């Protein structure tokens, strides 16, 4: 299967197979007018299977969200058909308005206008905790 190469835009590569749609939704890509290709189960030498997202527009994307869902993704920035930047992503230290605290006793559950902030408390086990109540983030 071939998808035309893009001229100016972003390619999210090495997405864990099956996670492409989740990334697509979390980044709000459905709201964009440009061409977007979501390729599922592409063959990968490194991973066997992977998902890829190609966005034919030079947009800012929230790499924190990507880092949280799948820190192994690489982000390629394409300018004039050339790959000008290849970014690997770290687990973000802080997530703002990505996750919502599920603890009903948390102040963020009562006061709707507060930003939902989570911080990385255990890098090894990828544990995030709510800034306010320290409850562990759950999917």
């Amino acid at each position, binding site marked *: 299967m071939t998808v035309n190469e893009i001229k100016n835009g972003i390619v999210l590569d090495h997405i864990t197979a099956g996670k492409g749609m989740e990334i697509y939704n979390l980044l709000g890509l459905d709201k964009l007018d440009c061409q977007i290709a979501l390729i599922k189960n592409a063959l990968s030498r490194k991973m066997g299977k992977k998902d890829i997202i190609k966005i034919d527009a030079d947009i800012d994307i929230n790499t924190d969200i990507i880092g949280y869902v799948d820190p192994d993704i690489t982000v390629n920035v394409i300018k004039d058909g050339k790959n000008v930047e290849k970014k690997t992503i770290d687990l973000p230290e802080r997530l703002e308005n990505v996750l919502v605290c599920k*603890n009903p*006793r*948390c*102040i*963020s*559950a*009562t*006061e709707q*206008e*507060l930003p939902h902030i989570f911080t990385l408390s255990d890098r090894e086990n990828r544990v995030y905790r*709510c*800034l*306010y*109540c*320290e*409850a*562990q983030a759950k999917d």
Partner: protein
Amino acid sequence: MRSLIDIATLTVAEIDELIATADDIIANPEKYAHKCAGKKLATLFFEPSTRTRLSFEAAMYELGGNVLGFSEANSSSAAKGESVADTAKTVSCYADIIAMRHPKEGAPLVASMNASIPVINAGDGGHNHPTQTLADLLTIHREKGRFDNLTVGLCGDLKFGRTVHSLITALRRYKGIKFVLISPNELKLPDYVKASLEKEGFPYIETTDLEEVMPELDILYMTRVQQERFFNEEEYLRLKDSYILTPEKLTTAKSDLSILHPLPRVNEISVAIDKDPRACYFKQVLYGKFMRMALILKLLEVE
């Protein structure tokens, strides 16, 4: 400008400094009687906690300062829909420091992020209560003269007992501390707290039997076992007496054991023990006031 929301944010050096100040206040109260003259403490109690509020108010009065605030059963401004952030900004115009009690976890942190004056967390639901831990620490230090090389028994509800979790957080920074965790199986210390102790190579033992470990203890920190924490009444009735401290259970204890309790107690320490020199829980209340005085001085940067 700093706030105190979580005991873990205080360094060992800062705790030492607070204890040194509290010791000096106890030795020379007149030296401190006017330190906060002209300053105001706002006690914002969105849920009632008479003893904590009185301790803060007494602390501020003994420093020569003034107190204003409210204590509500169903939170006055919150009931009108005012956010914690707005309350904090408003009160910053009237007072020099805030002590906030709130039923919602994290509310004092939100206040500290929005206030232009220091905020002290006076208890946020089942989450943090750092000034209780400061009271516990001063009590241990006054009684033992040190924080290292102690065997600390924590007895009762170790699952939901926030004072226990905070005390562990504070004490695990010292050398030679051994924790003895005494609770019914239903109320054991949460796995994530135990995991962090294991990760740091901290020795601890877990048991359901208080009497068995009594001879080892230097400190015994009692907490209440509440009936509503149990799945069935039968279990509660079977277990409740094993976590009530009586003179009989103390017969094998060390002569210099220190018995602490965050209070209020219901029946988990028999009143017959109150006269025992090892009972420290009323001194602990007094020390709580001195630590709040030391903390107010530190946060207001009063020399």
